[in-house]
Structures are given as C-alpha cells and as structure tokens.
C-alpha cells in the first residue's frame, strides 16, 4: 500500500542557548487509509512530532514526505495550501471561531480553499453534520453548544476538504469517557467510509488498542510500534 506520510531521521532541538533535544532520529511511515495511534508519557514528544507531521513546525533535521512530496523546500504559503487541502486537524481544544455558527465553522477550510460556497459544499457539510450528529445545532453560535458538540463540529471541520490525513492531538482529551467512546467510533467510521488516514495521539489505552497500529514514544524515541494484522 502507498505511503501517505514519511518521516526520515527527524530530530528536534528546542532552544538557542540551552538546547534540549526532544526527538531523536525518528523514522516512521504511515500507510494510506490506516488508523494509527500514538501513545506515550507526558513530555515524551508526541505533540512535537505531530506538529512536524502537520507542517505546523519544522524539524531541526530530517525530512518529511507527504504523499511522496518532500516538504523541506516548501515556503510558508505552499505549506498553508498543503495543510488546507491535504490535512485535517483535530486538537484537544476545539478552537472553533466563536464569532461564527456551527455550519459556518465547518465551512471555513472550504472557504480558505474556494472563493464561493457551492451547493455541493453545503450538502457535504450537512452530510458531515449528520454523521457526527450535530444537525440540530447547525445554526447555533459555536459558543452555544455543548463541549462534545463543539468537538464534533471540529471533527466535521477537519473533514470538509476531504483531507487525505487527519491528525488528532488528544481529540477527546476534554471529553468524558462515554463521549470519548462515541467520538472514537465516529472517527473509525469516517476512516472506513472515506478511507482517510488517521494519526491520533491519545492517553487512553483502550482507545489506542482499537487502532490498526500503536506507536509508543518514550523520551523522544520510538519505544514500541505494533500493527494489528488486518
């Protein structure tokens, strides 16, 4: 199967005067349409790694290849376009724009990409809202819905441009355990439905075990990398 994302000899060093290395020679690749989880202790470097995968941060050394293209030589604008069209983000906090409604929030990545909102875009947004179960609140302001609904809105927003990869940094970190369960089932469902590749950081062992592959990071190195046979 095709490699959708490749990390080659990634090192990350923070700081100018006092240097702290948080990632050491990371080599990882991810296959298309798989569901991957990353676990590890707090401070082990998971978020740092994910930000590098998502082009939000640059590695100190090493290369990142997304869909076969090395991103090292891309400028800020090219990376922005890549993120917009290729990657969906779900963070621990929903980061919805409080000035906009649920529907409008979901459409923002689409509007960054396209000039006009088409009928197709709206029906896709409606389909996504149906899937994540927020159709009833679509015209509410983003601040006027529950935490779980906000996180689902963020998920729908991450998916509106039909990204090849969805990166989640503890996407359910803020939710109670039963909602967490529901949201993960949802992500799995989307993974199967749209063949989207998921890479999800989680603290929850039970959640991780449902993934196709579990990667454990310890002190900036890969401690464990196991795949379930599919």
């Amino acid at each position: 199967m095709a490699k959708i994302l490749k990390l080659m000899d990634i090192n990350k060093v923070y700081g100018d005067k006092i240097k702290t290395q948080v990632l050491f020679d990371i080599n990882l690749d991810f296959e298309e349409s798989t569901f991957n989880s990353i676990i590890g202790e707090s401070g082990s470097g998971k978020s740092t790694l994910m930000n590098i995968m998502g082009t939000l941060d640059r590695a100190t050394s090493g290369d990142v290849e997304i869909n076969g293209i090395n991103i090292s030589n891309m400028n800020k604008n090219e990376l922005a376009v890549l993120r917009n069209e290729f990657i969906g983000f779900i963070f621990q906090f929903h980061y919805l724009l409080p000035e906009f409604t649920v529907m409008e929030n979901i459409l923002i990545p689409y509007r960054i990409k396209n000039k006009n909102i088409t009928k197709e875009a709206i029906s896709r947004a409606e389909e996504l809202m149906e899937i994540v179960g927020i159709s009833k609140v679509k015209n509410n302001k983003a601040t006027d819905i529950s935490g779980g609904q906000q996180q689902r809105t963020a998920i729908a927003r991450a998916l509106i441009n039909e990204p090849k990869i969805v990166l989640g940094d503890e996407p359910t970190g803020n939710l109670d355990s039963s909602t967490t369960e529901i949201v993960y089932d949802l992500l799995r469902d989307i993974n199967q439905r749209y063949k989207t590749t998921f890479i999800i950081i989680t603290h929850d062992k039970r959640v991780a075990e449902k993934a196709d592959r579990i990667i454990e990071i310890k002190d900036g190195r890969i401690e464990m990398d196991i795949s379930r046979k599919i």
Partner: protein
Amino acid sequence: MRLAFSIAYRFLKSNKGQTDLILIGIIIGVSVQIFIGSLIDGLQISLVDKTIGNASQITIVPAGKDKYFLEDRALLDTLKTNDNLTAVSESYDNSAFININGDTYPILLRGLEFEDANMIYEFSDKLIEGNIPQLQNETLIGATLATDNNLKIGDEIEILTPEGVNQRLKISGIFDLKVSNLNKTWIVMPIEGARAIFVNDNQLTSIEMQVSDVFKADTIAEEIKNNLNNSSVDVVNWKEENEELLSGLSGQSASSIMIQVFVLLAVLLGISSVLAISVVQKSKQLGILKAMGIKDNQASFIFLFQGLILGTVGAILGSIFGVLLTYIFSIFVKSPDGTSLVPFYLDYKFIGMSALIAIVASMIAALIPARNTSKLNPIEVIKNG
C-alpha cells in the same frame, strides 16, 4: 479575500463595545475636522464677501500715468460675453468739489451705467431714500454726506471741477454702502452726465468687473490682459491690492489644516492601538485559521478590512455629524444684528476629501496590526490552549 472580509466583519460585530468606541472616535474626529474646515471656509468666504463682494474684483484702468482711455465697444462686448465674469460696468470718475453753503468738500464724482453698476454695487438695494437718477443732471449721494449737511431728496448741490466748471445737480436718492468713506465722498450719477461736466466724450476711467470665483480673479485678469492687445490700458485685480487679507486667509487655512492633521493623527493612533489589541485578543482564532491553511497575507487582510470597515462607516457618519454640527452652529450662533455669525457653507469636495482621507488613514492605521499577524505562530496558540 471574501473570507477575510466576512471574518473582519464578524470580529467587529462580536466586539461590539470595542467597535463602537473606535467608531465614536473616528466619528468625532471626522466631524470635528469637517466642522472646523467648513467653519473656517465659511468665515473666509464671508470675510472676502464683505471685503470685495460689492467692489470691483478685476478692473481695466488706463496704462501708466494716463487718467483716461478711449471707450471700446468691441472690448465691452467681449467682456460681457465672458462666462467667468458676472458683472461688467464702465465708469467715468473724476475728483471734484462740492459747495455747500460756501464750504467746499472734496468728492469723487462717479459716472456709471446704473444698470451695469447695480450688478456690483447694488445701488437699488442700498438706497435708503429716493430713486436711481433718470436724468443727466440727477445724482445719488451717500448717507453720511446727506445727514452731515442736512440734504434731502430734491435738493440741489453744486459741483466745482478743478477746471473751473460749475454744475448744479439734483439729488434723486441717498445710498448707504455701509462704508463711511464712500458714504461721504461718492457722488454717483449717469455716465453721460459726468462726461458732460468734464467735456470728455467717449473716455473712460475704468471698466469694473466681478467674477464668479473670486479666488481665480488673478488668472482671469491675466487672460483678459493677454486677449486685450491694447497698450493704452492695464488690468488689475483685487488679489494684488489685498495682499494682507490674502495672507491672513492663508494663515487661517494653515492653522485649520494643522488642527485637522492633529485630529486625524489622534484618530489614526486610536484605531491602530485598538486593532493591535484585537490581534492579541483574536490570536487563538488566527492560530487555528493558520493551522487550517489561511495564508499570512489573507490573515493580514482580516485586519486591513477591519480598518476599511471602521474607516468607511466612521467617515460616513462623521461627515453627516460634521455637516449637522456646522448647520446647527450657523443657525444658533448669531451676531448681534441677528444674522448668523458664520454662514452655512458646504464644500462637497472638502467633505469628500476628509472622508476619503479618514478611510485611507484607517487602513494605514490597520497596517501595523495586520503585519503583526504574520508573526503569529499557530503552534503557540495550540499549545497554550
């Protein structure tokens, strides 16, 4: 771009208090600017009008030391068809004396075509008694001369010329030109009568003119001079003879511009600082927009558009308030005689310019905050929740 605009609009709408405050700032700034500008314009126009509104603004006079020049019908006709001129009046003037009960006083005997001269001096409106002279031996005298010497309509006065001619004239009316020197020394009569006294047919001492735009008097005078090709006459205009007034006016204009610049500067700093705070307040939103792939310059446009929206709304409302303020001032602030101290005067070009400058300034003020968005790193936002 459209997204940047709609985000800008939503940001403004969501921070109503802040938006209103900054808008009030711009409105006050623009309206004060328009008020002060219109006030000073109005003052200047009324000052100029009082000074030269009833006087010759461009005058054709004899060249050099000559006292007279030959009347030229063709020249008169071209002047009368000149669109820049609102009045053209020939005159034959000469100094003489008036003899009242054995006392003689120096006077200026002015021979005019009343129909033309009215366009400048408005004798018909300024008569306090009597009528415009119909006959060649009738005359108007000033109010001061009349009261000082107890002269009445129908009285006869005796004119003595330096050449020794002695002529009696009948008073047909008494004028008040509001200038005591003129009220005392001007004896105004039909031009043919004046020429007859001095035996000077077909001669003129001046052609007096008024223009539609008084501040263009010098260029119009220059044009007339160039088309004249008559070496026996010269063309003068009010601007060369009123340099003090003009320098006073330009000093006033300069101080008005200074005030406007400082008002604008204050508005500019206000917008800039509020938008700079807004960038910090909205850093979360900007961070997530960047993570989702908004480009740096698009993010900057969010703040430029905020400047544009604030500037446009502020400029429009400010213009309306400024005009209103000027209007109210002209109605309620009156001089002792009941006329408004400053006439209500609107220069649409000036108002348009003020509004435009305010809009451009608002966008310039938004430039620094807009540029600051580029420095914003999405990771910082995501990390700090």
